């Protein structure tokens, strides 16, 4: 039984609102650079969307008014390293909109998640900048750069960012821990945090809270895709955990609350446009993303894997839809005489 009927703009506003807890924790951990990068990404997405709409002779008011470009920019901005040079952020956001959405005919037509398209392009083009994260507050006396300092660093480009402020992410660091057991790594590395990386645990919990708000309170999406993804990721992590030896893939909690897991589970795989359609299809879609995230994290060349996992499953979504069509009323249950 369903009751509410918000418009597309209402849906998008709710999504933006639900990212705020995660954004706040990121801000606290990494300083104003996070906000600057997010704002740049949103601005880049809006500008590119406006350009494309103008070129396609479409109404700017309805095209921009639905809020989807803001959400794309926001999600991309949240996924980018805080000190990424401004021009890369703008480029990524613009390509997300242009190559991720508008070339297919705009909102609703894109087979791939636009934010993940932008992220993947940046990751393969600028691997060094994209894998260099800001260090979280409190780690080795790190004090995040202030607003002016952050702005200067972002505008100046990566070479100027002092080494004291940046480093690998916990996922990255864990992967290259050489022959340490999990326990040894946790003891040795300040990045290890309590169980899923310093700072990242709180980031993920904050995104989890926002996501649960959207799912349970606002009912914007069903549980199928997020639960499918998190369950699959957790199951994979359990299978390859092996008690924490030097070849362990990391604990289930490390994977569930590390990296971009919760952002992906509630804000990326729930994208209706590029995902599967039916409840069963969405469950399968989520499971696929979860398995791929684990496989790429554990055995692939990249530290985090959300973008590639989502894009691969986006490509599979039409097939999933084809094989998970729900039974229509009056079909199948009873033999027609």
């Amino acid at each position, binding site marked *: *039984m369903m009751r509410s009927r918000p418009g597309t703009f209402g849906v998008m506003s709710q999504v933006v609102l639900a990212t705020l807890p995660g954004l706040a924790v990121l801000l606290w951990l990494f300083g104003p650079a996070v906000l600057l990068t997010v704002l740049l990404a949103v601005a880049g997405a809006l500008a590119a969307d406006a350009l494309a709409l103008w070129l396609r002779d479409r109404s700017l008011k309805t095209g921009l008014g639905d809020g989807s470009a803001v959400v794309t920019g926001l999600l991309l901005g949240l996924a980018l390293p805080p000190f990424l040079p401004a021009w890369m952020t703008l480029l990524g956001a613009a390509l997300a909109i242009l190559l991720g959405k508008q070339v297919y005919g705009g909102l609703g037509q894109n087979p791939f998640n636009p934010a993940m398209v932008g992220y993947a392009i940046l990751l393969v083009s600028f691997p060094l900048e994209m894998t260099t994260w800001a260090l979280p507050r409190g780690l080795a006396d790190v004090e995040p750069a202030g607003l002016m300092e952050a702005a200067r660093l972002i505008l100046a480009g990566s070479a100027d960012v002092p080494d004291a402020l940046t480093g690998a992410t916990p996922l990255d660091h864990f992967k290259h821990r050489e022959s340490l057991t999990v326990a040894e790594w946790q003891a040795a590395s300040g990045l290890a945090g309590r169980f899923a990386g310093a700072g990242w645990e709180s980031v993920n919990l904050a995104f989890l809270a926002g996501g649960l708000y959207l799912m349970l309170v606002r009912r914007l999406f069903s549980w199928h895709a997020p639960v499918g993804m998190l369950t699959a990721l957790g199951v994979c992590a359990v299978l390859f955990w092996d008690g924490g030896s030097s070849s362990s893939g990391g604990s289930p909690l490390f994977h569930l609350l590390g990296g971009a897991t919760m952002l992906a589970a509630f804000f990326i795989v729930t994208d*209706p446009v590029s995902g599967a359609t039916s409840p069963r299809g969405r469950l399968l879609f989520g499971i696929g993303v979860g398995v791929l995230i684990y496989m790429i994290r554990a055995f692939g060349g990249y530290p985090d894997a959300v973008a590639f996992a989502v894009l691969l499953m986006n490509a599979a979504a039409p097939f999933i839809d084809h094989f998970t069509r729900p039974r*229509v009323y009056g079909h199948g249950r009873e033999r027609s005489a």
Partner: protein
Amino acid sequence: MMRRRHQLPVPPHSLDLPSHKQRTRDLPIEPAPLFDRLRLPLSLYGGGQARPCVNPGEHVLGGEVVAVADDGSGLQLHAPTSGRIVGADGWRGSHDLQVLEIAVDGEDCAAQHTPLPQWQDLDPALLLQHLQAAGVVGAGGARFPAATKLAQAAAHGIDCLIINAAECEPHLTADERLLTERSAAVIEGVRVLAHLAGAGRVIVAIEDDKPTAIAALEAALAGSDIELRILPRFYPSGSERQLVTLLTGREIPSGRLPLHLGVLCHNVATAWAAGRAIVHGEPLTRRIVTVTGIAVNRPGNLEVRLGTTIGDLLTDRGLDREQLREIRLGGPLTGRRIDDFNTPVGAGSPCVLAAGDGEGMPTGVEQPCIRCGACAEVCPAQLQPQLLHRFARAGDLDSAREHGLSDCIECGACAWVCPSRIPLVADYRQAKADIARADTARAEAEHARLRHERRQARLAREREAAETARKARLKRVGAVVARARSRTTDP
């Protein structure tokens, strides 16, 4: 006292709509005034047409036959009051249908009725004929001839008659008032229908948000074997297929009728009309219509003569044009949007809604589908409306058909919840019409092919026959020649 509590569950694929019924549910039925003219719709169920059997200028009495269905069913339309026939002019509606215009003389003289109070003793075939001649059609919206449906049921053999009093669509209170005020007359009609259908079991189904109507029904049914079933409130509980499934637990197979499960459904207002037609001999010339909406100053439940125009009706009840956003005939979800005040109220129109802000279908600029799936969540036919929408817009009729377009009951739930404000039902109607056209074209092409092949076969047969005849002739000639020759050579 029967138990009020219902145990029937709300189906998962359903919609909880704002009811808006409180505006008119306590207003007693009042007769609509006699307006200067009536525009009696001549369109019938499924694109059929009634042919006028009166001439322009002719004077008719109320209840006199003015048009006859052209499909040979025997269905007749009657003048709702006395007056002069103006003519059947083209009706400037959205379809190229016709109306019969009557200049009302204000006397309201009625023709003689033939009541059949002893109907139980009469031959059902005769009663069906009587019902058809009285023009009784389904009042729920489809306007299918009641007698045809009953004859099918009797021929097929059914064990249960369901009287649909769910009235689940927002704003509608016509059936509720009918039951509250005239429950005895309604039950009289129900008995007639049950007799004609040969149904052993009769169920009257009504939503639980209509306590006064339920109380009236309980009083009218006291000591009777007709069952009263209270439905939970959801949309669309009054849809035939959903109602049958809710009451029997079985689904009607795709492309089949409730008859397939031994069930016949009739609307409660149809039952009332049938009772009037058989027991009192009154043809169908009026119905109860809820006139409501923010833009109506004096909303109410009116007993309206068929053919009364929306314009007359709304002007009489006070139309606030400042507030008016759209007019819908037949309910906010399943009704049609009306842009012409000359559009008449027909036998299948339970409501005239002069909707203000937030009352009709959600309005706004249509935006692209983002496949959010809200439509699939509420679709009572369990379709994937977002996919059907894509196929319909792309003209991919085969895929639309394969994904069950024909199973769409056009309830409008998908369009109601669509965050992109896509007029989904309009798309589906268009696609269905396109499919029907394509099927007709294919059937015609097939017919032409068969005709061609038969012609070729006939020509071949004729050629062969001619050849045989020629050979026979030659043989005969040869024989004659041989005989002649033998005669000459052998004297």
